[in-house]
C-alpha cells in the first residue's frame, strides 16, 4: 500500500506554509503528525499532489496558560499534552481522554491540530472541544479568524477550514471554580475508535446545585454532538442519581447513531446513556472535591 506521487515541501515558516496552501488549494495537504493522513495516503484514499510539511514550525506548538485561558498550539503533539502534569490537572477531560487515543507510538507524532482538522466522528478531541466551548483560531495568508467549536465541525470528516487556511491554535476556557469534568468512552479495544464517548462538565453553585452542565458525545453522529440541552432540567438542582437518570434519557433521545461494523445503532444509543450516567456522576464528584 504505497502512496501516490506528490511534491514534498518542508515549510520554512507559517507564511510560507500558508502561501503554498493558497497557491494549491485542495490539491495540497498539510503534513503535521501524519498519523491519519499517511495511512489514508497509503490506502490511496487521499492523493494530495503537494504535501506541505509543517513539522518544523515550532512556534505552532506549545501550551500557554499564562492568560485567563489555555491556548494550545495546533502542532502540539499528544505526548506533550500527556507530559504536562499541570495541564492535565487543570483539564481532566484531556487527562481522561488521552490514554484512549490510539497508542503511545501514535501519540508521539500526532497533533491536536491534526486531530481536530481531520474531524473523525469517533475522535475524542472534537467532543472535548465542543464540551469546553473552545475557540479555533484559523489563519490564511490574507488574515485570521476565530470559530467556535460549535461551528467548526460541519459534517463527516469536514470542518469550516477553507482550502487556503490552517488551524493554528485552540483556546480553551480555564476551568471554573467548583467544576469537575470527566471523559469516558466504550471501545472494543484500548485505543480503538470509540463506539460512543462522552465529555461531561458539571459546575456547582455554593449550594452544590448544578449551575452549568456541558455534555458532548463522540462516535454517535457525523460530528461530535452537543447534548448539553439534555441536562437543562438539572440546572439549579442537586445532582441526584434520579436527576442524572432523566438526563441520560435525554441524551439517548438527542442522538441518532447510525451503527457500524462493531455496534448496532441501538447499542450505541444504549451505551451513550450508560456513559452519560457514569461520566456525569464522576464529574459531579470531582466538582464536589474541587470546591
Amino acid at each position, binding site marked *: 500500500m504505497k*502512496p501516490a*506521487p506528490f511534491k514534498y515541501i518542508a515549510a520554512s515558516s507559517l507564511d510560507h506554509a500558508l502561501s503554498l496552501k493558497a497557491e494549491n488549494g485542495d490539491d495540497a495537504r498539510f503534513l503535521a503528525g501524519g*498519523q491519519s493522513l*499517511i495511512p489514508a495516503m497509503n*490506502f490511496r484514499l487521499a492523493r494530495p499532489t503537494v504535501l506541505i*510539511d509543517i*513539522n518544523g514550525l515550532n512556534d505552532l506548538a506549545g501550551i500557554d496558560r499564562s492568560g485567563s485561558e489555555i491556548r494550545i498550539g495546533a502542532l502540539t503533539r499528544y505526548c506533550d499534552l500527556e507530559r504536562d502534569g499541570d495541564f492535565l490537572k487543570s483539564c481532566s477531560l484531556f487527562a481522561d481522554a488521552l490514554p484512549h487515543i490510539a*497508542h503511545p*507510538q501514535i501519540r508521539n*507524532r500526532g497533533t491536536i491540530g491534526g486531530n481536530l482538522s481531520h474531524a473523525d466522528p469517533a475522535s475524542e478531541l472534537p467532543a472535548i472541544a465542543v464540551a469546553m466551548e473552545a475557540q479555533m483560531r484559523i489563519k490564511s495568508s490574507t488574515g485570521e479568524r476565530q470559530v467556535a467549536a460549535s461551528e467548526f465541525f460541519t459534517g463527516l470528516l469536514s470542518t469550516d477550514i477553507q482550502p487556503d487556511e490552517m488551524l493554528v491554535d485552540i483556546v480553551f476556557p480555564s476551568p471554573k471554580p467548583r467544576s469537575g469534568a470527566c471523559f469516558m468512552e466504550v471501545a472494543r479495544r484500548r485505543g480503538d475508535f470509540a463506539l460512543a464517548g462522552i465529555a461531561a462538565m458539571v459546575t456547582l453553585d455554593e449550594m452544590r446545585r448544578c449551575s452549568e452542565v456541558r455534555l458532548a458525545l463522540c462516535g454517535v453522529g457525523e460530528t461530535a454532538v452537543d447534548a448539553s440541552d439534555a441536562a437543562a432540567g438539572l440546572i439549579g438542582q442537586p445532582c441526584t442519581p434520579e436527576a442524572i437518570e432523566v438526563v441520560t434519557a435525554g441524551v439517548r433521545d438527542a442522538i441518532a447513531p447510525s451503527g457500524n461494523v462493531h455496534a448496532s445503532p441501538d447499542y450505541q444509543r444504549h451505551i451513550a446513556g450508560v456513559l452519560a450516567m457514569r461520566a456525569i456522576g464522576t464529574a459531579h464528584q470531582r466538582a464536589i472535591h474541587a470546591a
Partner: protein
Amino acid sequence: MQPDRHDIELEVNGTTYRRGVESRTLLSDFLRHELLLAGTHVGCEHGVCGACTILVDGAPVRSCLMLAVQANGHKLSTIEGLAADSGELHPIQKAMHDHHGLQCGYCTPGILMTMTAFLKENPAPSEHEVREALSGNLCRCTGYQNIVDAMMAAAQAMRAAP
C-alpha cells in the same frame, strides 16, 4: 509527474547516512531497502500492527507512517542497534530469549523498540502497565504472556544492573 527527490542526512544506530530519496518513500521502506536494515518489519502500512516501530530521537514511532524525507536531521534507533557492538544482547533481548517471548519473530523488532523506550521511562512497571505499553504491538503467535514475563524480568535485571 517526475519523481520528486530530496537529499537527506540522518543518523541510524549511531551511523550517519546521506541519501537521495523520493518524497513518497516511506521511512520503513527506506530503512529496509535503501539502508538494508531489514530488521524493522512491515505488517500493515496503516499504523496499527506496530511491527515497524523504531525510535526517532528516542521516541517510539511507526516507521510506516513517516516519510523517509521527514527523518532528515534526526537520530533513529532500530533493532540492529540494540545489542552491544560486542554482540552481547541487550537485557531485553536476553529476557525475551530466556522467557520464550518470540515464536516466528516477525513482530519482535517492533516490540523490542517499543519496550526499550517504555522501560527507560518506567523502570518498575506493574504487569498491567506492561500490557498497556504492549497493546500497540500486535502478536499473533505468542498470546503475549511470555513477552510480559520477559519485560518484567528485563525491568528487574536493568534495575539491578550497576
